[in-house]
């Protein structure tokens, strides 16, 4: 079975019922996506499927075949951080960092859909991602900052 991840094609043998998260982590050693709950409740495993955020812990790997998968590992280009990653650093929007991959992937999906979200729109979209360290307000600030930067770039 072929999986298209971060613009690369991986040949991987998948078992029936295997989650996409398990395929990424255990078969391909792409460990940036995290296990947090296994029931799609915390968002630590969030990846993009054709640009749509998905909970990879409950998404069957077989169903991801033929689709464009983006994980946290595929976000920075040639060590150039994505504006959302840069904004998370600037706003110190992480403590232990375990939720960060999922937060960033969800935020990237949000900004793709809505390049200039209001605070309330960010909260509504991100509400499925848990940060136990409590950096929520910082994450909202980081997404707002990234939005400003991205939009600035668009107008150049």
């Amino acid at each position, binding site marked *: 079975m072929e999986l298209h991840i971060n613009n690369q094609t991986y040949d991987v043998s998948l078992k029936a019922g295997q989650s996409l998260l398990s395929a990424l982590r*255990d078969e391909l050693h792409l460990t940036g996506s995290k296990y947090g*709950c296994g029931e799609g409740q915390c968002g630590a495993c969030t990846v993009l499927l054709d640009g749509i955020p998905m909970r990879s812990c409950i998404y069957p790997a077989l169903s991801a075949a033929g689709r464009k998968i983006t994980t946290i590992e595929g976000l920075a280009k040639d060590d150039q951080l994505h504006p959302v990653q840069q904004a998370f650093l600037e706003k110190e929007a*992480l403590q232990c*960092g375990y939720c960060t991959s999922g937060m960033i992937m969800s935020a990237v999906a949000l900004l793709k859909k809505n390049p200039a979200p209001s605070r309330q729109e960010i909260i509504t979209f991100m*509400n499925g991602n*848990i940060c136990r360290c409590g950096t929520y307000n910082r994450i909202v600030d980081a997404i707002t900052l990234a939005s400003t930067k991205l939009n600035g770039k668009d107008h150049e």
Partner: protein
Amino acid sequence: MNNTSTLNRRHFFKLLGSGIAVAVVLPGWMIAPKETADGPTDLASWIHIGENGKVTIFTGKVEVGQNIRTSLAQVVAEELRVSVETIHMIMGDTDLTPYDRGTFGSLTTPTMSPILRKAAAATRELLIEMAAEKWKVAANELSAEEGKIWHKKSGKSADFASLVNGKQLLRTLREEEPVTPSENWKIIGKNVHKINGKDFVTGRHVYTSDMSLPGMYYGKILRPGAWNSTLVAADTREAEAMPGVWVVKDGNFVGVVATSPDLANQALSTLKAEWKTPAQTSHREIFTHLSEKAESGGGRSKNESGSVIQGMTEADIRQKQIYQLHYIAHAPLEPRAALAQWEGDKLTVWTGTQRPFGVRTELAQLFQIAEEKIRVIMPDTGSGYGGKHSGEAALEAARLAKMTGKPVKIVWTREEEFTWAYFRPAGVMEVSAGIKKDGTLTAWEFHNYNSGGSGIRPLYNIPHQLTEYHPSESPLRQGSYRALASTANHFARESQIDELARSIFMDPLKFRLKNLSDERLLAVIKAVAEKFGWEGKELPANHGKGIACGFDKGGYVATCAEVSVNPVSGQLSVLRIVQAFECGAIINPEHLHSQVEGAIVQGLGGALFEAIQFEEGRILNPFFSGYRVPRFSDIPPIEIVLLDRRDLPSAGAGETPIVGVAPAIGNAIRDAAGIRLMTLPLVPDGVVKRDE
């Protein structure tokens, strides 16, 4: 230059290889007895500068998101006059770092940070002495700046590497080392970004759960149906017949090892076991249970002054009230994980724990081997909040690895983490108090059953007082938690103070100011009241404001909350939290702000809706779908005032900022709806209802 024992010296240089130049070693007197009660006392922290000039810091403290990797590096960089980026930190590795009792109790900043600071200052002076000798000039003509030693008179400079030049030196720390006074700080007190932050935002950081070794297998443990169960019989034949699966049985311990995690899960699901479980208390009877099973006789942490009976006699108004709180879970987003590898009789375990040396002891006891044969390594971990003091996954992985002869990794599921870790204790607090008509406190009697004694003593001026903690029998496994019992004790105390003020129609802020004289506490109260706009604040109908204050672990906190309670539905909305915090000199304002903010958010969960439900030894809500934690939509605007006291030593900040949240909100609910809630969580269903 004093030498410490040759053994330590040899050990140190052996570990670090050739080119080691400078090491700073601590004498025993430096270390608080508390820190080293069960460990060696001669080596507590090491700084060394390699031939290449690279600065390496060794500390047994660990990083769980509180950003001590950054703050400790800042302190060292300040004293060595180098940039933070040039510092390499080795943390929580039992073979490489000096013994450390653990990362808890907000102790890193008040205990480790000053040691490293002195050690760095001593290293700087040592480098200056070396340069003075080399250039044949007086040491007082030299200075350290920008990673070099300078002789300004002659314009000479030398970088650390050229001074070090392959020498192997040890230097024992003196009681007084020339640390930089706060008015000259250039790095301490500044916002330095998380030093390895880029690894986290790119997904490159390797947590224990991300690790793998060649030929590694995956382990799963057969869990009992309930706490306190004993295994009657286990049928493991089906799993044993599966290719690529091994079954390990040892009394109550049954585990499977497989070549992939999916196969391990599959094998686990084929195990059939019969357990015997005794009748056990549920969350519904927990408060009666804890009160009844409390240790008879005198309590612990007992503190008495004056005579409560006399104080009550002098009082015009007397009140007695019982407060209680449920068990809650830490729910760190990275569940327990460990990777264990045996090489001959040497065991190496990577695991996320706040006590790597404690886990090494647990392993040594389990396998009956010397601690020197065991190395525990703690990669920066997906949080702890006091919930990872123990080494369950490490022990399980090491057992399975020993029995199969392969490296084995275990990652707990969310359900396992919610069920088989340990909980913040439930508790019952009985408060009796007396005041005069003018609001003067005369008597205070406070008993805490089961939850603990931290933060139990009031800072209020009360001539007649008695505070006591009574251990009880907990039906669930309980342990540490961010600020532990301080939350319970502050909730009960600050709620009661509010009621006392109300009983004489006195403003709760004025009541506090009248009965307090601790200047640091008064400063945070005044700061929060000003920021919140307490005085003269006109609130809309059904809105309320609440204030609470407290002290613990060297930190002073005051919190204000504004809430609204829908008069028809009872629906609660927390509209605003304002908090002032002071913990001495601030090392990194942005990271301190983040800790305070994180504590407030975590405090919101325990204050409003987090509670573990259990029955007959079973956890009934061991999932994020059943155990509600704060999410984006739960977070009100949070405003934080940090008071920087550069004249005072820095205290830790991970815990105390949590204690004011619950009472401030409870007091605001009382103000808005006229209802005093006496149980945490206050509104499990989001609705304000009178306690039954």
